[in-house]
């Protein structure tokens, strides 16, 4: 089959990176994962007293530790993907757009790690 691209576009080399659906899929998979987790968090928090001692005791329960860590990781992965799409749609200046996406990505990574470390710190009682 003949190549339909112009010589210029060929030289620039931009085009499909064969990962067009990756972003889309991961957004949906993290969403699917969070449906039960969010209901668990919402109703779980509502049904317990939220003083410091009870909170610590609850988080130290192994099932809660695991659930919270998965929820935190899924949340910030999902947030990064979603915020990136919003930035791509509304920020038209290329440099601002790129810098915003990088900052959002780093911020989500930082918050996710701080969250997981906090849960582990409480769970391990250190």
């Amino acid at each position: 089959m003949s190549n339909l691209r112009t010589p210029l576009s060929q030289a620039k080399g931009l085009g499909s990176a064969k990962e067009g659906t990756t972003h889309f899929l991961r957004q949906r998979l993290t969403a699917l994962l969070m449906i039960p987790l969010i209901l668990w968090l919402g109703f779980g928090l509502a049904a317990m007293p939220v003083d410091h001692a009870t909170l610590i005791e609850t988080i130290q329960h192994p099932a809660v530790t695991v659930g919270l860590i998965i929820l935190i990781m899924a949340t910030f992965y999902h947030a990064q993907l979603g915020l990136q799409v919003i930035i791509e749609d509304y920020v038209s200046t290329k440099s601002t757009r790129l810098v915003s996406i990088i900052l959002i990505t780093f911020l989500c990574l930082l918050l996710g790690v701080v969250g997981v470390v906090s849960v582990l710190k409480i769970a391990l009682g250190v």
Partner: protein
Amino acid sequence: MNTQNNRPLSPHLQIYRLPFAALLSITHRATGVILSMAALLMIWILAAAASDAESYASIQVHLSSWYGQIFLIGVTLSLYTHLCNGIRHLFWDAGVGFELETAAKSAKMAIAAAVILTVTTWLIALNVG
């Protein structure tokens, strides 16, 4: 404006009343941004709780005040709205519910479900107190 041109105009946001489904679509993004900020706050609270009881108490004073509770109810409503409308999006991704009538109906269902979930959650929370 060219009066001879009868081509449809794109919606002029100041005079165009968005259909409910379209309003919910932009709300999905807005709640997404709100929830990202709420997630930041949650991590702050979690880190404070991991640090010591005093740091946690200094935040809890604000969260248990009247303005804190109103804020948290708002976050809860955003959370459940995003959740329910997100499930609606997942059905679309599976190719289900694209008909205009169905989409309009599912929009109302999503909002109703979000309100019911919010009210239930807070009825439980206020009773546990």
